[in-house]
């Protein structure tokens, strides 16, 4: 069973994000972490490998710093890592990014693709389903459980007000949701291996893509400008003993804000 895991190195959730003077670029504090949903995806891939043998390959698209995410994957137990590194790949929308990833995945035979439900930096949640469609494969989004046997997979998904069990023919893509598993912490031996591991690289030319198909030129949705969110006014603390404050809060919500 060959499993491909798509991962993304993202700014730490607490990193400072400032808007550049031109209004179309972002200045992001250089503090990074692997997207949290991707850790569930790697863990699930390693569990599938433990049960069914095969190999786990992690792929990321990004600049050199994204190697960190690949090394984390190897430290956890992945066998191979590929960095899709090309100026032409950067600043793409979901479509352009998914096109590049799907080309890279298609280079070698595979049975399962796993990725996070969404990246928590740009919050699009588009790339997983788009990769599946580019490859003409089914996908199941936001899985909580995955069982693989005989060329098929059975997955559990949380749906509004309940749970659904879905069966799908392999190869297929699954996006991981919190609750799927508990990602392992890499062992020191894994970390050592990751430091020495060779990271394969691929450029647009390697994937048979013209630069106009990837990154910003290949994007269907483009950022016109960035702006800061509207600032909330300072909090108004409601004074008094708990009971008085509670009664005053009700009055404010009903008579001033009129939200009740």
């Amino acid at each position, binding site marked *: 069973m060959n499993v491909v895991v798509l991962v993304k190195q993202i700014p730490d959730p607490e990193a400072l994000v400032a808007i550049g003077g031109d209004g179309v670029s972002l200045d992001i504090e250089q503090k990074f972490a692997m997207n949290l949903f991707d850790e569930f995806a790697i863990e699930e891939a390693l569990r599938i490998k433990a049960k069914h043998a095969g190999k786990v390959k992690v792929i990321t698209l990004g600049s050199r710093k994204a190697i960190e995410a690949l090394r984390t994957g190897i430290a956890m137990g992945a066998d191979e890592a590929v960095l899709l590194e090309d100026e032409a790949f950067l600043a793409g929308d979901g*479509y352009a990014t*998914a096109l590049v990833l799907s080309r890279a995945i298609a280079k070698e035979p595979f049975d399962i693709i796993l990725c996070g439900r969404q990246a928590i930096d740009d*919050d699009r*949640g588009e790339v997983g389903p788009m990769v599946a469609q580019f490859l003409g494969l089914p996908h199941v989004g936001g899985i909580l459980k995955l069982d693989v046997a005989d060329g098929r997979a059975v997955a559990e998904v949380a749906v509004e*007000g309940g749970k659904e069990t879905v*069966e799908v023919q392999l190869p297929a893509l699954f996006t991981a949701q919190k609750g799927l598993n508990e990602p392992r912490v890499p062992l020191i031996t894994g970390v050592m291996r990751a430091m020495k591991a060779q990271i394969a690289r691929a450029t647009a030319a390697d994937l048979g893509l013209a630069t106009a198909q990837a990154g910003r030129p290949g994007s269907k949705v483009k950022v016109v400008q960035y702006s*800061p969110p509207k600032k909330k006014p300072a909090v108004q*603390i409601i004074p008094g*003993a*708990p009971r008085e404050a509670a009664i005053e809060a009700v009055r404010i919500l009903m008579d001033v804000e009129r939200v009740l």
Partner: protein
Amino acid sequence: MDKILVFVEAKGDGPRKVSLELLSEGLKLVGSGQFSMEAVFLGKLPGTVKGKILHYTEKLIHVTDPALENYTAEGYAMALAGYARETGAKMILAGATQRARDFLPRVAVLLQTGIASDVTGANWDSNPMTFIRPMYGGRVLAEVSFSAYPAIVTARPNSFGVGASLAQKGEFAEFQAGISPGQVKTSVIKREETTLGKVDLTEADLIVAGGRGLKAAENFRLIEELARTIGATVGATRAVVDAKWRDQADQVGKSGKTVSPKLYMGAGISGAIHHIMGMDTAKVVLAINNDPHAIIFNYANYGIVGDLFEVLPAMTEELRNRLGK
């Protein structure tokens, strides 16, 4: 005239509120004279749902196919992309529901276009139209435009209002998706319902949420009683879900749900960045915490520094009095 399709979903015996929000926006665009609009419904369409949709659109298209009996991303994507292609739509609007966010990216690939996901605003009058999407957990807003069509947009629930219904019912037509057997490789084999009929957090107007300050699972009854009094949905923080006090479905925040209610009341919540990212588009926030330095107060409109075990019951009692319950 450019055609707009609005993908409509049902909940219970009516259309989802977010679907009505987008139909209402669509009707405004129709009113400008440059657009026509159709509501599009996929799969089994109950009569009551149909009746209600027809009051918010000039035309409802029911896309049918045996493959649409149960939701699958593949089937829904093929059906909607097929209809959009057939009719030459310039824009597809949908609520940013779990389902729409799951299959519309596939529609975008099938139609070789892009998608603006989970937008919280739109500049319908600018040329080209632009859409506002929060990024980095709401710390930046990106204004985006399309260079391919149809423009596919999913909008966060409660970002737009529901307008007045039409005096006259719209027309109705069916469209057969014509999905060939074997094209859909996914099948739903079981569905378990646990909390059917409850208002989902993502669409809720009113939310009462609790954090670790509640000290024990059973104390969530204070949150539940307050919520029940005003018809609110209960939310929870990651700490509380990880401690198994509440179900994962109740989690608000980065690894849970993004909510945008009119009123968000949070009790015993410290305000970790992961939580704030999930609720910072709430219109009014009331925080209750006995720590005056709790970070949640930086994101609240109103705060009560006090013991939630006294404040919550007092609020519930006062609300019962005032609401006559």
